[in-house]
């Protein structure tokens, strides 16, 4: 066996694992429709092909197990037996056994000496036994429900990726281009021909950017790869809880980076367990409330706003807000004063606080002290955010937003001791600058520890220079320079980091440190800055641990604010997001918009300096929104040259007092429903209602009534064209 070709073995393993996965998937589906002959045939084929190939390698144990399963499936296929929970359990146990053996083969190239005779006997017995009447309608768990989220230490890791041949061709093509560009560059440098250098540099830039995008694509995988195992998990957990639950998956083709898919495994598993154990009611309770006996879980994924959204919705009882309130107060997680201010939605998010639990009794499945705070930490570790919404009596929705990739992250560059360091934005809460005049007041010493007065509380401070043993740039304790503090959070720790200076915010490419250097836990990796210099990336949890800050000692008052970022009392409003100028996103309330139109350029007519279009039996004057906001006069705004080059023109139609005006925008981005507070921004220009956070970024909110009512454009337009419009 030593001489066996590695490549063939590897192929066999990955193929067999895929087959085992398929068997599991089909079995869980088959339980719902036991008569589906097509499924049975697929099952049979999958098990058969595992058996067939392992004969070639001489894996006798694997062959024996698969053979017993194949016999039983043969009976199902021929209709001699029908699928009972007992058979389903035995077959699922078969899948587990196959996986265990395959895992061992991958690790040691041997089948190992675990005995599978009991399983084979069980399968054979079912095969030969007379068809027993099906007694139970609820499937029992196939094995003990595995409580470790890893699914067994022997689970073989996927170490290869499939890449589309077209993508590979494109990559090869781009590398070819890259080589040509390099040759050209070398030639030009060698011959001192610097005239064409800018053009070559530009080409190199283009090819490199394209190459980067394409390579990133090879790392993208459908999230369904992770979700394959969830129907089985749902079945087993539900059976262990004595409930019946079905899991529907939507958007399994949504793609994201491999590393993120891996990191999402535990949180998703945990959420599903929780939803089944705590969310979905027992069958009797459901029946009493007039719900179908079978509980429903919906897991869906989709792309939106440059992020991947994952939502898990159950149709259970909703969160017990009263009990959450009691538990949180009893465990002193929230002060009474603050508790009075929280809304139901905020209370729902209290479940993410560390140490929170309402469980009165620990079940086999959840409530073991590993709470939702772990889920939240896992999600935040990969730069994501989590939020829960509860509808009493109707269920709970947990929303997770995660970045597409981990390889490139937004970061803040700071300096300490003359060297630059990067802090991931995901860990950054805010930046604080303490002027020398405030220093004595805001930066007191608690015994020997410097702290910062921060939001009615005290925030422990760490000095990056002390941690890194670099020479301090300051003279004395509080010199006459302002102190720059980055407020960081990680897991449930919030801490202020004193740095020499804050340099810039930029996207960085994360490069791992080699194994031997990873023992320095305060660095998450390194990155290469624009000037070619190397900057180390700080690992915030590691930094806190290094400084001896215990992970469970939060700063009072801070965590709740960190969780409850959304202003809950704001009304839900529908907004149209559009670009007014290049990359300038503004939001317009939907109620101020009559229609969104696309008008072909050739139908735009000019009268004098004004542009207009025949529209719904009338005339619609067109003005450029960008030009109005640039404070141009009415004439310029309506002048065709400001309308840009697009064809057709995206137009927002606004109606007022029976008149219409078409506002030409750069592009219409999307329509969103957002529950965000509008804050009046100081120094806001006329026509803006203020700014608000939409899709995680600050967006200016336009008020068309005000804009057209008060600005010279509106005044000028309205009387001059009275009677226009529909």
């Amino acid at each position, binding site marked *: 066996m030593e001489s066996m070709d590695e490549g063939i073995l590897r192929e066999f393993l990955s193929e067999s694992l895929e087959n085992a996965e398929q068997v599991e998937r089909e079995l869980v589906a088959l339980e719902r429709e036991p008569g589906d002959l097509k499924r049975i045939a697929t099952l049979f084929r999958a098990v058969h092909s595992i058996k067939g190939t392992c004969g070639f390698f001489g894996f006798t144990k694997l062959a024996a197990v698969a053979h017993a399963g194949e016999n039983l499936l043969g009976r199902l296929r021929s209709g001699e037996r029908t699928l009972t929970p007992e058979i389903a359990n035995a077959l699922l146990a078969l899948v587990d056994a196959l996986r265990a053996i395959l895992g061992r083969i991958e690790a040691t190239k041997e089948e190992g000496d675990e005995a599978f005779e009991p399983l084979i006997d069980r399968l054979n017995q079912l095969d030969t036994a007379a068809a027993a009447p099906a007694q139970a309608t609820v499937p029992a768990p196939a094995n003990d429900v595995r409580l470790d989220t890893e699914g067994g230490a022997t689970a073989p890791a996927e170490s290869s990726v499939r890449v589309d041949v077209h993508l590979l061709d494109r990559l090869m093509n781009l590398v070819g281009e890259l080589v040509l560009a390099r040759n050209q560059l070398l030639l030009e440098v060698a011959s001192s021909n610097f005239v064409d250098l800018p053009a070559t540099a530009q080409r190199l830039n283009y090819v490199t950017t394209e190459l980067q995008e394409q390579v990133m694509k090879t790392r993208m995988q459908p999230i369904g790869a992770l979700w394959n195992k969830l129907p089985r998990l749902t079945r087993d957990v539900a059976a262990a809880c004595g409930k019946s639950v079905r899991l529907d998956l939507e958007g399994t083709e949504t793609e994201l980076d491999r590393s993120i898919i891996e990191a999402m495994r535990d949180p998703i598993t945990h959420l599903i367990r929780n939803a089944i154990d705590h969310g979905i009611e027992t069958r009797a309770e459901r029946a009493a409330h007039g719900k179908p006996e079978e509980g429903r879980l919906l897991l869906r994924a989709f792309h939106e706003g440059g992020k991947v959204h994952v939502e898990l919705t159950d149709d259970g009882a909703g969160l017990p807000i009263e009990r959450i309130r009691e538990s949180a107060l009893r465990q002193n997680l929230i002060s009474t004063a603050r508790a009075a201010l929280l809304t139901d939605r905020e209370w729902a998010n209290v479940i993410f606080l560390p140490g929170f639990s309402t469980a009165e009794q620990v079940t086999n499945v959840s409530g073991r002290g590993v709470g939702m705070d772990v889920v939240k930490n896992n999600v935040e570790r990969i730069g994501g955010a989590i939020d829960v919404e509860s509808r009493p009596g109707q269920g709970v929705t947990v929303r997770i937003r995660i970045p597409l990739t981990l390889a490139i992250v937004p970061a803040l560059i700071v300096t300490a001791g003359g*060297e630059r360091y990067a802090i991931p934005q995901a860990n950054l809460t805010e930046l604080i600058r303490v002027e020398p005049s405030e220093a004595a007041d805001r930066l007191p010493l608690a015994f020997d520890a410097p702290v910062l007065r921060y939001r009615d509380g005290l925030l422990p401070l760490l000095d990056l220079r002390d*941690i*890194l*043993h*670099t020479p301090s740039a300051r003279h004395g304790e509080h010199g006459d320079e302002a102190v720059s503090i980055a407020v960081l959070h990680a897991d449930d720790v919030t801490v202020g980091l004193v740095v020499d200076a804050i340099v810039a915010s930029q996207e960085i490419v994360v*490069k*791992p*440190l*080699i*194994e*031997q*250097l990873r023992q*320095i836990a*305060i*660095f998450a*990796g*390194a990155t*290469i800055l624009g000037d*070619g*210099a*190397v*900057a*180390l990336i700080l690992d915030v949890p590691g930094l806190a641990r290094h400084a001896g800050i215990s992970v469970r000692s939060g700063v009072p008052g801070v965590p709740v604010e960190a969780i409850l970022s959304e202003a809950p009392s704001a009304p839900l409003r529908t907004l149209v997001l559009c670009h007014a100028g290049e990359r300038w996103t503004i939001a317009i309330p939907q109620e101020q918009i009559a229609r969104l139109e696309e008008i072909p350029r050739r139908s735009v007519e000019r009268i004098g300096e004004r542009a207009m279009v025949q529209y719904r039996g009338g005339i619609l004057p067109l003005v450029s929104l960008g030009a109005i906001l640039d404070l141009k006069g009415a004439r310029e705004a309506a002048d065709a040259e400001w309308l840009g080059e697009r064809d057709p023109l995206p137009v927002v139609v606004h109606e007022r007092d029976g008149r219409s005006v078409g506002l030409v925008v750069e592009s219409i981005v999307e329509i969103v429903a957002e529950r965000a507070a509008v804050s009046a921004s100081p120094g806001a220009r006329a026509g803006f209602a203020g700014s608000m956070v939409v899709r995680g970024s600050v967006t200016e909110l336009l008020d068309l009534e005000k804009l057209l009512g008060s600005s010279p454009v509106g005044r000028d337009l309205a009387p001059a064209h009275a009677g226009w419009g529909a």
Partner: protein
Amino acid sequence: MTEGRLLCTFRVADHLLGLDITVVQEVLRRQEITRLPLSAPAVRGIINLRGHIVPAVDLRCCLALPAAERGEGRATIVVRGREDSAASLIVDEIGDVVQVVEASLERTPETVHGLARQLIHGVFPLHDGLLLELDLGEILRVAYA
């Protein structure tokens, strides 16, 4: 193989040292080194090798030689350690590639003391001096410890 091996030689302090050419990936002249706080003393920092982050190991520190003075320690040798992990060694000066015959390898004298004894694989007597062949695995193990 009787024709022997090729060693990439370099100088650190007054010693002529060598590594088998098969473990040497490339030789770099001046290289910007970024300090790596809290690392082992022999790890001087990290360098940017065409987008790869590679640790820079100070050979003087490994061999317990006095720290380099200004102007020394300018050249860097990039080597491939176990499992293909790259590392760079900071040396004073790059020497020639020298052909040696395995049969002429002498054991490291018992009188070599300290860590150096572990790190020196053996000695090749050349006509104008001694060439000490280093044990790369040991050097990296000591450096990262």
